[in-house]
Every structure is written in C-alpha cells, then in structure tokens.
C-alpha cells in the first residue's frame, strides 16, 4: 500500500510538471486572440483598440487605406467567452499594421452600430482600429508626420506564398526620387491608361522610423524596361496615378532588385499582353 502511494505521488508530481509546460502553438493562438469589449472596442494583448471614426476621414483615405498590413500573422477577434482553441472558427479575422498600433478587422461578424468605412466594393467590410492609448498620437502622426523617410518594396511570391519586404538600397531610392523629380509622367485621371507588364513589385514609402509603410505605387517590368506607377490623393480624396518611364541608366539597379527577390524577369508567358495587361 505504501509503495502504491509513493508511485501515485510520483505520477501526480510528474503530471503537475507537465502542466507547467506550455505549448508553442497554443501560445501563438493566445497571442493572436483578441476579444470584443462591451462598447464595441477590441482588447488585444492587454491593449484596448478603438475604431478610427469617420471624423478622421482624411487620415483614413490618404494614409490608412493603402497601409501595408502585416498579413503574415492573422489575429482573430471573438466574444470574450470564446475559448482560444475556437477563436479561428468563431472569430473575425484581422491584420496588424504600424507595428501593432492599428488593427484591420474584416469579415461579417463585426459589432453593430459602427459608422466606419467600406474599403472594398463587396458586401464585406474592413474596419480599422487604433490602440486607444496611442490614438491621438497615431492620428497626428498619420496626418502631419507622414514624411517619406525611406522607400521599400513588397512582393507577393505566388509560387511560395510568401511575402517579401525590404528597404530599397540608397542608389535605388535616389533613382526613384530622381525619376519622380525629373521625368515627365503620363497622368491618368480617369483610369483608362493601359500598361502591359511581365512582372511587378509594389513600392512602399516608410515614415516615422519605418512605423508606417504605405504602398505608393507599382514598379512594372516589361521587356527590358521599367515603369513606375505613382499613386496619390488630392484634397478631395480623388486618386490619381502617374506613370514614369524609368530611364535606361537605372535599369541595372532595378534588375538587381528583381534578381535579389528571385523574380524571373524574362519569363515568356503564353499570352502576356492579354492576361497580364492591367487596366490601371
């Protein structure tokens, strides 16, 4: 009997030790689990997130809409009583932006009475939330502090499913600035300018120590030449696109970038001009 008790005690101690050890997948799920609060706010990682309301429309349209959301890690927002293991099944998914200062929550299971913005044309909504304790600072930073400090790139590799991001080299940055300054663009005001391309790469602009990154355009490669599409909004939030043909002297610089990202420039698609042509 004594022996049995000892064995039982050892087993219990061992089970207790097991309970002290967590699970990596569970920890990740917990880290990506946010909950709705009673007032429609979101609680995530002990921070409260409040919506960016329509009073900040300027902020929203000019900066937030084109932010590059970190889609490598999805968060799930659920009601507070939903266990973490069911968060993916029963939650609304979303992405983080600006180093966790902003959340983009989308889907259909959003809290009622939200006067937020439609960012897509479908019956599907994206809501932008901002960390409550940094709300004013973020809005101010987005409104006034959005000065381009650096240029980066963003490329979605369809073969691997991975997103590649990074900062442009100084020479590449200078080339872009030079092109924007000295090359006369083709302005497209009504969206009827066609461009044919083999490959493309999103060019992003970084500000505030890389905290905010905003897609500002696309770099298209077509048959040995590059074209930069630069997009911006006017004061009435109308979007404009400008197309800059990149001079030959910079071609090698961007070849280098495409090679670095493993983008095959010389792939001959069977129907290049029709399927890859895009109405911009």
């Amino acid at each position: 009997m004594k022996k049995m008790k000892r064995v039982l005690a050892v087993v219990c101690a061992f089970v207790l030790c097991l309970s002290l050890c967590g699970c990596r997948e569970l920890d990740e799920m917990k880290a990506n689990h946010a909950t709705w609060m009673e007032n429609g706010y979101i609680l995530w990682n002990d921070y409260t997130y409040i919506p960016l309301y329509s009073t900040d429309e300027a902020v929203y349209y000019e900066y937030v809409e084109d932010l590059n959301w970190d889609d490598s890690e999805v968060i799930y927002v659920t009601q507070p009583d939903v266990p973490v293991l069911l968060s993916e099944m029963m939650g609304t998914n979303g992405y983080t932006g600006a180093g966790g200062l902003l959340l983009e929550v989308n889907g259909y299971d959003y809290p009622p009475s939200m006067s937020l913005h439609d960012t897509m044309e479908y019956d599907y909504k994206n809501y932008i939330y901002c960390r409550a304790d940094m709300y004013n600072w973020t809005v101010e930073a987005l409104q006034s502090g959005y000065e381009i400090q650096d240029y980066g790139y963003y490329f979605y590799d369809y073969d691997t499913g991975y997103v590649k991001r990074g900062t442009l080299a100084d020479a590449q940055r200078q080339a872009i600035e030079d092109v924007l300054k000295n090359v006369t663009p083709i302005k497209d005001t009504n969206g009827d300018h066609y461009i044919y391309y083999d490959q493309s790469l999103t060019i992003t602009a970084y500000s505030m120590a890389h905290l905010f990154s905003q897609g500002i355009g696309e770099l298209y490669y077509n048959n040995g030449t590059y074209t930069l599409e630069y997009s911006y909004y006017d004061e009435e939030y109308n979007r404009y696109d400008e197309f800059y043909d990149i001079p030959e002297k910079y071609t090698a610089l961007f070849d280098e970038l495409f090679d670095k990202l493993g983008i095959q420039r010389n792939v001959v698609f069977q129907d290049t001009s029709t399927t890859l042509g895009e109405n911009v």
Partner: protein
Amino acid sequence: MVKKLFKHELNAYWRIMLPMWGILLAVALLGRIIQFFEFDHFVYDIVNGSSVIFYTLAVAVALVFPVVFAIIRFYKNLFTGEGYLSFTLPVTVSQHVTVKVLAAVLMAVLSFAVALVSLCVITAGEVLVELWKAGIYILNYLHTEIGAHLWWFMLEAVVLVLVVLVSQALYYDTCISIGQLFRKNRVLAAVGVHFGIYLICQVISTIGIIIAMFVDWEPLMLWVEKHPYATIHTAMCGFIVLSICACVVEYLVVYMIIRRRLNLE
C-alpha cells in the same frame, strides 16, 4: 457458470489489451515529454511529428484490435478444436454467444475510454484545459441553439453506438458461422461471406435508390423543413430499430448454425 465464462473471456482480453493500452498510454506520455523541448530545429520537428504519427497509429490500433481479437476468439473458441471443450461446459449456445458479444462490446468501449485518457495525457496541462473549455463552450452553444433536444440527441447517439457495436460484433460472428459451414478453407469462406453480404447490401440499396427516384418526396421534404429536430430524432430512432433488427437476424443465424450445423474441426 455464465459469470465464470464471462470472467474467463475477460481474462483472455486483459492479457492482450492491457499491454496494448499500456503502450498507447506510454506513446502518449512520450509525445507529451517530447513537447517539453520546443526547439526551433528541423530535427525536433521530425521527432515531434513522428511522435504524433506514432500516437495516432497507436490509437487506431487500440480501437481496431478489440474487434480483430473478438473475431479470433469467437472462431477459435467455438469452431476449432477448442470448441469440444467449450461446448462441454454447462452453458447454452445463446449464453456462449451473449458472453462473446458482451465482452467484445465492453472491450471496444474500454478501448475508446483509454484512447480518451491517452488524449488527456498527450495534451496534459494548458492544452487539456483549453480543450475542456472548448468542449464545454460547444455544448453550451449547441444547447442555446437547439435546447433540450441536445440531450436527447446525445442519448440517442450513445444508444445507437452501443447497438451498432453489438450489431457489428454479431455481424462478424455471422460471417464466421456461415463460413464454417464449408468443409475446407473456412476462414477464407468467412471472408467471402462478408463480401457476399456486402454485395447483396449494395444491390439492395441501389435498387432502393432507383425506386426512390420515382417517389414524390416533396411532402416529406416540407415536413422535414417544418420539423428539423423531429426528423433527426426519427432518423436516429429508425437507425436504432434497424440495428436492433439486424442484431436479431444475425443472432438467430449464429444461434441456428451453432445449434444445428456445428461442424468442429
């Protein structure tokens, strides 16, 4: 005597099943211990992945083995040389069959219970707590959605599973019993009987489907739309009744063959 027979039957099972359950629990424990060391290294990923695969295999074996062992025991005890001893015991044929079936069902249920315990072992700690929370949440959610029907559905499901287990055990016994009517290759004949019954069932169900194509289902579908829960209750009870009917037929076949056409090796 029936009690003794049942005890003897269980003893035979324990000799095989206890080590098997022990292995299952050990594999689960090993898997849990491996989770202690969460290295970011491909070797760890391989070891961890392998432990999960081994665990899954162990669960599958633990669930399938009682069925296989029940078939072997039924055949050996009643239709081979051991049958001379078995049928000298002061128990009736129906008692023999009942004991075999009850032991098989009990082992299947116990194996399932041990598999659940092993799941608790491999997830011991935070994951188990979260699994438990998720289970309770789903139950509460379903209860909110469908009310008291949930408990009835669960009760019907448990009864259905038990009846199906009995029916399955009797089905294999039926195949073996019919197979032993042959003079040679009796095991092979039993397998043939199994495929024969399967083929007959397929033909009957195909004919049923063809007939069903000419039936006007609209009134029934309207009724189903109006009474979804009653439909599920009716279906569950229908399956239970069908399974019981199958049990009766299988039992009678086994009983009659052993009683009248027993042909020991």
